[in-house]
């Protein structure tokens, strides 16, 4: 409750017009940054506990990568093999969106929660982004795949290494032609 209350309070403070429009002093901006970061990190514990109950990943880390917006993720920067991405839809209706996971340049197979292959592509991050100062430079590619998730629910994507026999495939090949088809099946 304390974690959620902290997040609630931080979000309340961010409704102030200075926070919305950027008319706060620099020190205040940095304090907003601190408040938000601490509140989000605290609430991550709640999300982790909830997701452990909702899934069979009792030891799942359920890490959030807060730098996905700059194509960086400490969790996947060395290797994305055997990574499970739990995708949670906060909307009140089924949604189909593309997910981008920063990864090193390797061959990957993406599967859904029922171990069915999901078409995916490896796309290079633009060099203008890679050349930015202070940005971790390990992840120079993004693995892109589509996910359809029902309202307020979660969905699993697993990223596996490609077996050696398939490793000759070009990195931007699509590994399967079946669409996820999950929404139709369940509907």
């Amino acid at each position: 409750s304390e974690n959620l209350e902290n997040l609630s309070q931080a979000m309340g403070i961010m409704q102030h017009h200075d926070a919305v429009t950027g008319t706060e002093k620099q020190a205040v901006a940095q304090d907003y940054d601190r408040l938000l970061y601490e509140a989000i990190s605290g609430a991550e514990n709640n999300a982790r506990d909830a997701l452990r109950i909702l899934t069979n990943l009792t030891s799942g880390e359920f890490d959030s990568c807060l730098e996905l917006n700059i194509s960086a993720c400490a969790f996947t920067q060395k290797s994305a093999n055997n990574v499970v991405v739990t995708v949670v839809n906060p909307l009140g209706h089924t949604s189909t969106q593309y997910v981008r996971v920063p990864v090193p340049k390797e061959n990957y197979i993406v599967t859904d929660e029922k171990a069915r292959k999901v078409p995916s592509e490896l796309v290079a991050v633009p060099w203008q982004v890679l050349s930015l100062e202070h940005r971790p430079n390990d992840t120079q590619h993004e693995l892109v795949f589509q996910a359809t998730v029902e309202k307020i629910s979660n969905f699993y994507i697993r990223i596996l290494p490609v077996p050696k026999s398939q490793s000759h495939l070009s990195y931007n090949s699509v590994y399967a032609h079946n669409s996820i088809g999950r929404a139709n099946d369940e509907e």
Partner: protein
Amino acid sequence: SNELIVENSLIKLVFDTTTGGLKTIEMNGVTENIEQSFGIYKGFQGNNGEAKNRSSGAYIFRPDGNIEILSNKVELSVYDGTKVKEVHQHFNEFVSQVVRLYDGINRVEFEWLVGPIPTEDEVGREIVTRFTTNIASNGKFYTDSNGREMLERDRNKRENFDADMTESVSGNYYPVTAQISLQDDKKRITLLNDRAQGGASLRDGELELMLHRRLLSDDAFGVGEALNEVQYGTGLIARGKISLILDAASENPNHAERSTQLELHLPFWKFFSKSNNVASVK
């Protein structure tokens, strides 16, 4: 060829390879010449002693002179995948962009990257992007009201009083927290943004969004600092997304725009775990 065509089953984009810029978009059964450009307003610097000497700052957008449109040839590189197609555009040392189409997604994504804005010449700069079309919008455009209803705006006018439009650029800027649109009898263009920005339609058929500002003077309206993150040594780099939807004009609120707006503001949350066990739904 003078044209680069990037398309999927829903959208066709045509780029002019002589300039490197976007030229035409075809989607939802509508085709329109849409040019996109980036521009720089120099921020006015004064002593704030009286209104005419007010500096451009956190509260005040006050350009000094006309916009400078980046007109150099844009370097292009293309990623032509099955699910995603990307055109990477390099405008100059501090402006670049990725134009992106996703298979099955009915919008064009523009992921812009601006900064650090140079100020070695002691001039503050405010960077905007402009989408120019032939849509006869007749001075009217629409901006959202904090993600709720769309409000009609009339260029150079206010609803309830005669406005002093001495500041003709900033006087037409409105807050855009989710969407800005314009239309005529046949076509409608909408930009959906990922953050609160300023936006305007300074000419018929044209939409403009402010992306990133770096200014060297305070505007004396309270913050007491210039918009210049000095502690970092150089200016900041900002990265964000604008989604564009071209559609037939409509009298009624557009459901597709509204639902896209929600998806952009509440995207999927991603949680990462290492596991050798395949998870199952409970």
